[in-house]
């Protein structure tokens, strides 16, 4: 059995001048949950629709389970899909909705009954067999959608923003339920979303897309801690960027000049002195120190410009150096008021250098 379940090979799709997928090459492993994450219009939905066969790519091939499916029509691809707006059949009961893929495949009646009941048990919707979709809540409708997608045990489960029509609390609940279900069934799943928290919580791996291209593919930790581009860093979580120039590279670290300040950060491979770099650090990784703290590595003097109370944290805007500013989040129990002088430390291992400037 090949390890790759789904392969995009150099897939491109254009709409006039708009490039929705630009030479997309991506491998999704058997049994993993891969999230396609990006802002709206980044091409993630186009990629998913290429996978379902609803859109035919202009160039490139798509493989599912080792088989080239680029020219296979949607109904022969043996997929399961969960839709953002649920897309249940409004004229059918829950039982018939879930049994629809089995009915289409002409399975014998008793087998259909057992498989439908199994799928409904899987999503904890026993007792709702005779309801119509409109009689169910959003969460229940999405469970029906999930059961319908899983009922005939497809090789691949596709989820197109399945939680964005649900309210926040339910969304979080369903997130874990989907994750648990996919892991238990060992099914390969492709999850499309624009919600970074969802992507980080659910995925085995995340593929971040921007303007039809892949920005980075990696585990949630890699994406969050080691972004490969400014776009990824900005898209996931909060971030600060400082533009600088490499002064010295010393093994695993390098010294970077930012304005009239010097910072020590982990080295960036294949770079040398004189090159421009971007230093990236998350607001909650920066340590806020008292004004009398002794100087040290990456310790800067700054002044509080703005302080906002966010409940569990305080959100500061700190000015330092020559016209530079950082966003810092600190403990709400230890507040610093605007105008106060502070010191702050950018821990070396929490800084991350990106090429360019």
């Amino acid at each position, binding site marked *: 059995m090949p390890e790759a379940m789904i392969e995009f090979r150099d897939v491109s799709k254009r709409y006039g001048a708009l490039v929705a997928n630009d030479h997309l090459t991506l491998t999704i492993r058997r049994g993993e949950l891969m999230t396609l994450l990006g802002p709206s219009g980044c091409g993630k939905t186009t990629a998913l629709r290429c996978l*379902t*066969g609803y859109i035919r790519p202009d160039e490139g091939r798509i493989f599912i389970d080792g088989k080239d499916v680029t020219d296979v029509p949607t*109904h022969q691809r*043996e997929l399961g899909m969960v*839709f953002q707006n*649920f897309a249940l059949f409004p004229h059918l009961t829950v039982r018939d909705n879930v049994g*629809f893929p089995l*009915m289409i495949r002409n399975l014998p009646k008793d087998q259909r009954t057992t498989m439908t009941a199994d799928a409904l048990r899987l999503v904890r919707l026993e007792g709702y067999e005779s309801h119509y*979709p409109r009689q169910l809540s*959003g969460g229940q409708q999405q469970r029906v959608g999930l059961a319908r997608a899983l009922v005939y045990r497809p090789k691949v489960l596709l989820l197109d923003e399945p939680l964005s029509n649900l309210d926040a609390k339910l969304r979080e609940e369903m997130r874990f339920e989907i994750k648990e279900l996919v892991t238990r069934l060992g099914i390969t799943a492709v999850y499309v979303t624009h919600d970074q928290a969802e992507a980080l919580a659910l995925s085995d791996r995340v593929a971040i897309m921007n303007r039809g291209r892949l920005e980075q593919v990696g585990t949630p930790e890699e994406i969050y801690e080691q972004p490969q581009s400014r776009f990824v860093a900005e898209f996931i979580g909060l971030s600060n960027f400082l533009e600088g120039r490499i002064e010295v590279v010393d093994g695993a670290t390098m010294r970077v000049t930012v304005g009239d300040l010097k910072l020590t950060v982990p080295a960036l491979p294949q770079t040398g002195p004189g090159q421009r770099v971007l230093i990236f650090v998350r607001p909650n990784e920066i340590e806020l120190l008292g004004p009398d703290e002794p100087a040290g590595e990456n310790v800067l003097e700054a002044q509080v410009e703005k302080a906002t109370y966010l409940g569990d944290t305080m959100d500061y805007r700190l000015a330092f150096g020559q016209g530079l500013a950082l966003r810092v989040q600190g403990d709400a129990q230890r507040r610093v008021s605007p105008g106060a002088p502070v010191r702050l430390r950018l821990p070396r291992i929490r800084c991350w250098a990106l090429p360019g400037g």
Partner: protein
Amino acid sequence: MRFARAYIRGLWDGRMILGYTLLLSLTVFIVVPFLMIALRSVGKGWFGRLWLPPQLTLDWYRWAVEVGNIPEVMKNTLIIGIIATAISTVIGIFAGWAFGRRQMPGKEVAMAIVLLPRMIPPITYALGVAKTFYTLELVDTYLGVALAHVSVCAPYAILVLSATFEGLDERVLEAADVCGANTLKRFFYVVLPLIMPGILASMIFTFTHSYNEFTLTLLTYGPHTVTLPVRTYLAVGDGYWEITSAMAVIMVIPSLVILAMIQRRAEPEKLVGGFKGV
């Protein structure tokens, strides 16, 4: 507070007055004439200023059937109605699909043109229709009269079916595909059940309209294609009010049957083609 309450009560009374006025107009303008016709169709020797007919009879119905040739006329009306409905529904399905599912330039203008026959008085173009049909030898044929009816029935069908197709959720169709349905199965198991209420609604509208159509029939009918409204109108000209009333009552019966069908079978919320998702 007291003023506010008085004000609200005043509004409430206003609503009651409005309600009763409407109810009264309904009675005066619909129920009373209808009762008069019904009474007249069974009354004998009902002249002068009597409130009720002195004698009841079913003779006028016998006359209507025998002299007025009502069975033949009813048959014509139904055949023309069925042809007009069939043609309008087919046009409606295709045009409705295009209007409801496709993006195209000038869609609003096209829709306005489609609706034109509904907006202008039929008599203005009925003359032109009549002239053309004489040339085409369509006058006094079932097809001819039905085609004339289509000019006002088809817009109804197109309007209703456009809304039906618009209400059809693209994602639901996609879901059917992903579930393994090919085009044929998707049509029979998903599309057809979802647009069926719309088709039924459109058929009821168009049939009723053709059944009631007068102006366009008057200019295209002939001895073999007399319809009920025209027959009733002609009977008025003959001066036999009792027979005319009997015909009018006969004419109303199918309309009432259809109304009962609508009430029973097609719930209003289903008429536009089902549930739209969220």
